[in-house]
């Protein structure tokens, strides 16, 4: 005899199984109307593929699986689709859900279907697809898509296949009657599973010892195969997957893990029959055996019922007396849920309809105080401490609840059954679980919000500090200027240094050093001074260039810091102007000196000096020069802008429109500038401009100015608005996608959530900038 293990706890409620075992499986027939809920399984609801008014055949797919964890739905009989609408479904929530409603025509006309001659020739994915396309979901009660449960990872070493024929819930006999009457189909289905799973050690069918007839039938059918029927003492809840695994193998499924983690795959007996029919006969899951029992039924029994059959139709077959029934339970008395009325349909997981009288299952008496008797802990199959968890649940001490492994509770109800004070313990745990889940979701949300808030706070603080620093610098500069007619060069540089404080420390240090040096200006030789000033101009040019690149990039990507960059850019342009002015002043002074010194000696030198002098001051530039420069710069900008526009268009970027607009504006400007230049060149001599146009510094300035102007082409408001709009539409789109993903339980939910959070952050920042 095979060794079996005991599980902790458990209870022995009256079995009440004999009532419904008086007769064999009876066909329930075809009801006038079938209601097919799109979600009869765990996972994403199926999506309808038929239309109202369409005629469908028996076995025709009427809704397809959506996503990996999902199964399709098939019409249970031939008829016409009359509605695809919200109908009340059998669910603890009592909510409505989309259903395909079919008026049957009584012909029960099958769609073309055929089985597989030799399933062993099929590879694993093909067989899994077949099972999935047949719409098979766990028929023991949970309704988890069977194909998903069977697609174990390749590296998972499955040594044991367990078939669950325990049926430990009182009253239910659907599996029992299957064993008695269709043992050969069960075994055939198990063999398919064996081929699919290839368990390396054993295949066990676990059955409680209160089903002698079923056990005998199974053993007879399994004769000669490697399938072993294992019998163990009756105790509730031995049929829980985790409990059955422990009973048959002594192994425990790790908390939060799957049976596959301990080398086991578990399937229900009813599922085996469904798989056999799908593989061998090509029949999708459109019917099941359901027990109709309870003292309010005068003819209890088991019925082969079409899925979608309204509950009242089925109850009538069992001789239902509505006036005697105190509560209508779908499932068993331990884990079943109550139905509000009888219009809901039978679904894939409906193993039992229990219609008890008031005497049979009286309404729960009011709960008394917990006396810590510990009977619940004695009964708990998961070795939890229900009485402690009850205190924590009442005190809303959710952390302690989790410490006490609330989430290992399988909600079997053994504790509530045993409690002498009639405390609805399971209800407390269910409520706490959902409350904890809710809090976890909110925590994630609030963490996102916190990060966003802190980023914003940091930015505002930084900006304030910068503003403050600039203000101080200005104040100081003004003071110094006012008090000691200080060297304007030094003042300007100090100002520049101060304005950059905290932004670019290295640069600030250099500038500071330079400012210091300029304080010693009188001691500098002329050469040194020239070198310094030239260097200052070059540096400023370089920085302006990089700033302009950054600005362009920021504009292209709608970055949040566009405003800040713009300001920085303006400041740099200003600075460059100052530096150049200084240099020019110095050079002109120097050249005058040189001129006086070497007057007659070197005419060439004199000419250069003159040219330099001419170029020295921007104010001295002739209108013609200016016009020429403008045209040149505009041409360059236009070229650049067009190039960018093309790139943007090619990439389908959001900024294409903006760029197009700015390009057009540039073109107009260029035209008018050219017109002006033409006028001026008529009236003025062109020779004076040579030095200016060839000066590289000047060119750089032009370039930078061009870039700036391109940015300025759009008003700040307009830009911010554009950015906002685009962000808003993106957030909206992402939200929609996320909702879809959440409904479907898709893998991408997390990624989408992250994206959404980031976008929202950006949007918030953009709004800040805008306001």
């Amino acid at each position, binding site marked *: 005899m095979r060794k079996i293990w005991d599980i902790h706890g458990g209870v022995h*409620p009256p079995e009440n199984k004999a009532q419904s075992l008086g007769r064999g499986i009876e066909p329930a027939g075809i009801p006038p109307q079938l209601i097919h809920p799109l979600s009869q399984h765990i996972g994403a609801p199926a999506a309808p593929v038929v239309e109202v008014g369409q005629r469908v055949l028996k076995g025709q797919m009427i809704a397809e699986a959506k996503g990996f964890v999902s199964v399709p739905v098939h019409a249970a009989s031939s008829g016409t689709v009359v509605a695809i609408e919200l109908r009340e479904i059998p669910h603890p929530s009592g909510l409505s859900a989309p259903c395909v409603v079919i008026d049957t025509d009584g012909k029960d006309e099958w769609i073309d279907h055929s089985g597989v001659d030799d399933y062993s020739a099929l590879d694993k994915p093909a067989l899994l697809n077949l099972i999935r396309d047949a719409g098979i979901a766990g028929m023991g009660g949970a309704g988890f898509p069977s194909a998903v449960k069977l697609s174990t990872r390749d590296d998972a070493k499955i040594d044991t296949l367990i078939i669950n024929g325990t049926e430990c819930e009182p009253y239910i006999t659907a599996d029992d009657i299957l064993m008695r009457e269709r043992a050969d189909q069960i075994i055939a289905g198990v063999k398919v599973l064996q081929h699919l799973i290839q368990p390396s050690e054993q295949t066990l069918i676990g059955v409680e010892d209160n089903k002698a007839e079923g056990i005998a039938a199974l053993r007879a059918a399994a004769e000669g195969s490697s399938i072993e029927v294992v019998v163990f003492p009756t105790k509730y809840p031995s049929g829980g997957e985790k409990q059955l695994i422990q009973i048959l193998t002594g192994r425990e499924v790790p908390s939060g893990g799957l049976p596959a983690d301990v080398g086991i795959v578990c399937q229900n007996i009813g599922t085996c029959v469904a798989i056999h029919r799908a593989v061998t006969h090509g029949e999708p899951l459109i019917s099941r055996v359901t027990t109709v029992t309870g003292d309010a039924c005068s003819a209890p029994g088991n019925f082969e019922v079409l899925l979608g059959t309204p509950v009242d139709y089925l109850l009538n077959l069992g001789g239902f007396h509505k006036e005697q029934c105190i*509560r209508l339970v779908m499932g068993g008395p331990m884990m079943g849920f109550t139905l509000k009325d009888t219009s809901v349909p039978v679904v894939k997981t409906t193993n039992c309809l229990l219609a008890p009288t008031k005497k049979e*299952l009286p309404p729960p008496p009011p709960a008394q105080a917990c006396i*810590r008797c510990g009977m619940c802990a004695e009964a708990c199959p998961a070795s939890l401490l229900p009485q402690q968890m009850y205190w924590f649940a009442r005190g809303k001490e959710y952390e302690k609840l989790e410490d006490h492994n609330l989430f290992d509770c399988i909600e079997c109800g*053994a504790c*509530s059954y045993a409690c002498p004070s009639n405390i609805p313990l399971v209800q407390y745990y269910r409520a706490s679980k959902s409350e904890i889940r809710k809090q976890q979701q909110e925590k994630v949300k609030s963490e996102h919000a916190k990060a966003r808030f802190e980023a914003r706070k940091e930015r505002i603080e930084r900006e304030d500090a910068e503003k403050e620093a600039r203000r101080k610098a200005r104040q100081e500069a003004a003071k110094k200027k006012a008090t000691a007619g200080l060297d304007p060069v030094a003042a300007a540089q100090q100002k520049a240094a101060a304005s950059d404080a905290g932004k670019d420390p290295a640069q600030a240090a250099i500038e500071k050093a330079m400012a210091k040096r300029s304080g010693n200006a009188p001691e500098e030789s002329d050469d040194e001074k020239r070198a310094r000033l030239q260097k200052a101009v070059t540096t400023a040019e370089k920085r302006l260039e990089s700033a302009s690149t950054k600005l362009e990039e920021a504009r292209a990507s709608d970055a949040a810091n566009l405003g800040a960059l713009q300001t920085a850019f303006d400041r740099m342009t200003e600075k460059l102007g100052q530096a150049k002015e200084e240099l020019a002043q110095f050079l002109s002074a120097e050249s005058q000196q040189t001129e006086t010194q070497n007057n007659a000696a070197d005419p060439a030198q004199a000419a250069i000096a003159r040219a330099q002098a001419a170029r020295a001051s921007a104010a001295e530039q002739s209108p013609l020069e200016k016009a020429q420069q403008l045209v040149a710069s505009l041409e360059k900008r236009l070229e650049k802008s067009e190039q960018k526009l093309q790139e943007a268009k090619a990439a389908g970027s959001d900024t294409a429109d903006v760029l197009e607009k700015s390009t057009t504006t540039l073109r107009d400007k260029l035209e008018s500038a050219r017109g002006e230049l033409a006028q001026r060149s008529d009236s003025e001599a062109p020779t004076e401009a040579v030095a200016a146009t060839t000066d590289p510094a000047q060119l750089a300035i032009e370039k930078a100015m061009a870039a700036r102007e391109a940015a300025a082409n759009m008003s700040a408001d307009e830009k911010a608005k554009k950015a906002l709009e685009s962000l808003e539409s993106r957030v909206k789109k992402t939200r929609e996608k996320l909702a879809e993903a959440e409904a479907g339980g898709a893998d991408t939910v997390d990624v989408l959530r992250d994206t959404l959070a980031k976008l929202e952050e950006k949007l918030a920042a953009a709004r800040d900038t805008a306001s």
Partner: protein
Amino acid sequence: MAFLTVSSPHAHGPLDTATVMRLVLLSTLPGVFALSYFFGFGTIINILWASALALGMEAAVLKVRKRPVGFYLNDGSALVTAVLLGIALPPASPWWLIAVGILFAIVFAKHLYGGMGYNPFNPAMVGYVVLLISFPVQMTSWLAPAGSFDGSLLGPIDAVMRVFSLGQVDAVTMATPLDVLKQNDSLLIKDLWADSTQFGSLAGVGWEWANVGFLAGGLYLLYRRVFTWHAPVSMLVALFVMSALFYDGGSSASGGSPMFHLFSGATMLGAFFIVTDPVTSAVSNKGRIIYGACIGLLIYLIRAWGNYPDAVAFAVLLMNFAAPLLDHYTQPRTYGHKTTPRKGEGE
């Protein structure tokens, strides 16, 4: 008619709190019968008077606390407290002594701590200890058992008159065997037994039968699965082991034989009716074993070397303190976990 909308499970087990309490009351009967057979009607009058007081006080407090009086009175817990205290007090104790005891048991120990299910200390034992410390004379004047003196036991009328001081009632009081043993420092146990008629065959006339009665009631409750074997058995085993260790061959310094300790005083009453009080004891089976064993140990320590001849009440109250700690350190390992919740909490 609309169907009930309720959460699962829909079936409920046969036991409810009121049934449990009724079973407990029923199981005290053999012990009470033995006490009455050997010590007269005093214990029964104790129980009746205590019950009346307990129900009255419980109802009054519930009313003050604005709780449904009938609903809570029905759970029978006040009655159990009253019966246990009535049994523990000397037969035919004065009415006011019982009243003070019940006051402390029901009002102080139970309701001031939040009522049924919330009290950390066993109410009956709190009442008993308050009386023992406050009124040592009344609490140690136990009646002499039948056969140990000339004259008849208290009849029902006499007992009522004695309890309510309605007139002069002759009653012989006598030190209990535990008391005698405690005072003894010169005689061998063998001689002590031979000296006094009240020691009976094993653990004192009357006492041994009363203990057998409570043992029988306790075994019935075990059979009905009202509580588990863990706490009572470990308490009895600990007491047995301690008394065996210190039996000292029955010398004059001996603490008494193991059988004497198991069947004298309040041992069996304590093991099956006090230690098993679910509210104030440890909840896990492992915790119950430790809880019971510590009580057994303390009983012997106090009996042998303390100031009081019997020690069940003190031992139980001391361990009531420790019960939450035991609960914390004896949590069972949950299915699918490698460690117990407590060990896991530091992670």
